[in-house]
Structure formats: C-alpha cells, structure tokens
C-alpha cells in the first residue's frame, strides 16, 4: 500500500500553515520529514493518518493494506501515549481485544512484538516504572502489534535524552533490516533524518512547502555514527534549513 498527498494545503483561520504539498510514500521505505518548528510537519502526519482533514487537496491510499493488518495507519507519538493504568502487555492487549484478537492469537502477537523490542522481561511493569526509552519501546511494540501498512512516527525520539536516542535509533534500524516496514518519520533532528531516512523531505517555514527532497542510497544498516558522507548530507540539510529556522525562531506566535 502506498500513501499519497495531492496538492495538500491547510489553514487555521487566516493563518496558512501548509501550501500545496505533493508527496508519495513508497512501500517499504522510511520517508523523513524535516523542517523548522511550526512548519506544519506534524499536521501533515495527522493528515496522513486521518486524524485531521486538510482544507485543500487530498490524501489518498493506493492499493489496499495487507489482509492481516489490524490497523493499517498506525502512529507512534512523541509523548508515548501509554495508558498509565495498564501494564506493558495490557497496553497492547486492550487494542488487540477491541479489534477482536484475543486469547492465544493475541498472546502470540504480544510475545512476538515484546521480543522484537527487547521488552519480554517487562510484560507486567506499569509505565511509571519504565524509563523514557523503555516507554517509547512499548509504544513501538504496540504499533508493531497491529501490523501496520504504514507507521506514522511523530518525533518519536524527541522526548528522550541523546544517549537513549542513539540506542533507539539502532533498534529502529535493526527492526527495519529484519522486516522492512513503510514509515513516515517526522523530526526536527537532522541526525535522525540522515540515519533513518531513505528519502528526506525538507519543508520550508510556515506556510510549509517542500523545499527539497533528498534521497540517501546508503543502506540503513551500514550508516554509522560519524560517517563522513552522512555528515556532509546533514550539513547540506542544515544549510537548506538554517535561514528558515532562524526566521521561524523570530516569528511572533499569534494563536
């Protein structure tokens, strides 16, 4: 299944936030969307998953999701969004149960995703007992459990410290290499983008427009911390964004 944004524009009242965006999300690849704060990148992600409607243009899905996909468009949120009153497995099982997956089948899925995210020992833990990195692992496990056709990740590592972020990036790369998934990854962190993105979309400041689309051909698993080619790429992205970020920083907030 592929997702497409066709001429998508959006305004909140008088404020134009997004202007004429055309973009397609190819199957089995990670598309990173980067841009200065307030450029509407998270809004774009909410359009992709149907949590919000653009005022202009449309979001289309090409082809149908695989039969065994429980929730084709699944988010991973910046603030984890775990139910604090449910254990790690409870946070996954209640979603499966609502989609009619119970008993041994649910058990098998939960064991599998917890093993893939290295959480098997923490099944019975409550969110308050977990570190930020572990919480995001649970949220990723929960997203994998519903077997999404496209994973929509909204700054998933932004609430974590830089060391945990490195660890989780490695985990995401491992997850993807073992079983490639389609993902849209919104971030303001260029290091994350060059590390995880097959395609990087640079947005301008508000109203957000596509400034440049960069393809990185290096396979994910051979991208390492401090790789000179990636560093050059990151520098290139920064030169694209610098002026925009500076201008965005100076803007008054009027909402």
């Amino acid at each position, binding site marked *: 299944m592929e997702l497409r944004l066709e001429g998508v524009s959006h305004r909140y009242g008088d404020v134009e936030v997004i202007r004429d965006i055309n973009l397609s999300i190819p199957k089995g690849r990670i598309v990173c969307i980067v841009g200065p704060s307030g450029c509407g990148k998270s809004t774009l992600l909410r359009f992709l*998953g149907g*949590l919000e409607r653009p005022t202009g243009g449309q979001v289309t899905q090409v082809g149908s999701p695989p039969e065994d996909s429980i*929730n084709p*468009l*699944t*988010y991973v*949120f910046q*603030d984890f*969004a775990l*139910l*604090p*009153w*449910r254990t790690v497995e409870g946070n996954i099982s*209640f*979603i499966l149960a*609502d*989609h009619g997956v119970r008993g041994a089948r649910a058990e098998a899925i939960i064991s599998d995703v917890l093993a893939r995210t290295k959480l098997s020992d923490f099944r019975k833990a*409550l*969110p*308050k007992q977990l570190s930020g990195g572990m919480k995001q692992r649970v949220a990723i496990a929960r997203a994998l459990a*519903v077997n999404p056709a496209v994973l929509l990740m909204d700054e998933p590592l932004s609430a974590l410290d830089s060391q945990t972020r490195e660890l989780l990036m490695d985990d995401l790369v491992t997850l993807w290499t073992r079983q490639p998934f389609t993902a849209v990854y919104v971030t303001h962190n260029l290091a994350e983008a060059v590390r995880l993105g097959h395609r990087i979309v640079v947005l301008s400041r508000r109203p957000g427009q596509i400034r440049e689309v960069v393809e990185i051909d290096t396979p994910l698993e051979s991208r390492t911390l401090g790789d000179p080619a990636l560093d050059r790429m990151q520098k290139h992205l920064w030169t694209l964004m610098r002026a925009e970020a500076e201008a965005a920083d100076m803007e008054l907030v009027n909402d």
Partner: protein
Amino acid sequence: MTDISAVSSGAPSAPLPANAQASPVHFRGGGFRPKSPRGIGLLVFVVLIAFLEWGTRAGFISALTVPRPTDVFATLVDFAQSGGLWKNLHPSLMRLLVGGSLGALAGIGVGVMIGLFSVARAGLVPLVAALFPIPKIALLPLFVIWFGIDESSKYALIAFGTFTPTVVATYGAVDNVDRSLIRMGQSFGLKWSTIVLRIVLPGAMPGILSGLRVSLAIAIILLVAAEMLGAEYGIGAYILQAGSLYDLERLFAGVTILSLLGVILSALVGLIEKRLLGWRA
C-alpha cells in the same frame, strides 16, 4: 579556576588566599513537603479528650457546657449493649447507602455525559450550577410531598445532595483526561465505547474519587437533617431527641458516632483509591 585538569586530581583545593574567610554556604532549600507522621493525628484527639476530662473533673469546665468524655463513653457502651445502637444505626446506614449510591451513580453518569457531549454540556452545566447552591435541607418539605413521609423522601434528599457535587467533580475529571491518550485510541481505530470505557473513565477516576469524598461528607450531613425532620429511628433522630432533653451525654454520643462514620467512609475511599489508582506516579 582556569586549570581544568586540576579538578580531577582529587587533591584538596588550592590554598586559600591570605585573609579570606571560609564559611559554609547558607542552606535555603527544603521545606514545603508536609508529611504526616503516624500517631500525631491520634495524639491530637487523645490530648483534646484528656484536657476535657481533666477540665470537667477539676471543675473549671462546667458539666452544663461539655459532658465528661468518660460519661459519653459510658453512654455509648450502654447504647451498644442495650441494642439501641444497632436499631438506630441500621436505618441510618441504609439511607446513606441507598441515597448516596443513587446520587453518586446518577452524578457520575450525568458528569460523563457533560464531559462527552456538547449538547449535554450546553444544557446541563447551567442547570447544575443553579441546583448546586440550593440548600437541599430547605427542599425536604417538598420531597415529603413528592415522595411521602417515609424512607423514599430521605433517599431522595440524600441522593439529590450527593448528585450535584459528583456531577461537577466528574465532568471536571473527564475534561482533564489527557487528550493525547484519546487521540491515541482514535489512531488505533478503537470503538467509541472502548475509548470511553477503557481510556476516559479510568483517566477520570482520580477526580471522581476525590469528588466522592466531598459527596459522602455531604450525604452524612443530609442524613442527619432528614432524620431530624421525621424519623422514628436513626442517628439523627437519636441526636434530636437527646438535644431536646438537654441530655448532653447522649447528644455527644450521637455526634461521636457520626464522626466515626465520616472517618470510616473517608478511609474506605482511601482504600479504593489505593487499589484503583496504584498506577499514579
């Protein structure tokens, strides 16, 4: 302090410059974190009662102003042994249970509706605001006309009194449920009913329970008021009777029972909170 490498050497810091005074940095943190050490609460009661006992025995507190605590205790024991305690406590507890749970359940239901539906919010919030400040005791004669002089008017009074504070607490609690959790539920394609039952209600539970504490105290107050107006048996009737006879020992015995009832109910809510809200950080 320009040489960074010297910091890690572990040697004592550089010698003080001549005629410099070394003094510890003045501590100004701490405080603002009250704890409740065990036993202090009990101690307050013991000291207060001991003071009254001593005062009435020594004679500087007249027996007409405050009865002697030991006499009150003896009255209570006598009351329990004669079977009068149960005879009066049983109907009171029934009224509290029936009226209180009717009011609380209806209140939670309406509160959740206000929290979820725009029409309910627009229509019912002003109504609740209009009902809240009415002293419910003033409505007792009306309830007697509507529901009769027997138990049902007492149930109605207690239910009505617990209803309004529960509604206000509940819709406030529903409003405060983390919206990102609800958005998460929608993004996973959960059914509306599942979002309400599994996300909104548990998320609102802390607020609902603390509202329940207030509602239960109000229920006890209204219980006594209802029983004072027309009941053969009940703690309120017992207190009223003692009061009209100026039997201060019995009056205080009745009041003590009410206090204990309040403490027990509050402890009960505390227990429920401990069980249901263990997930709170």
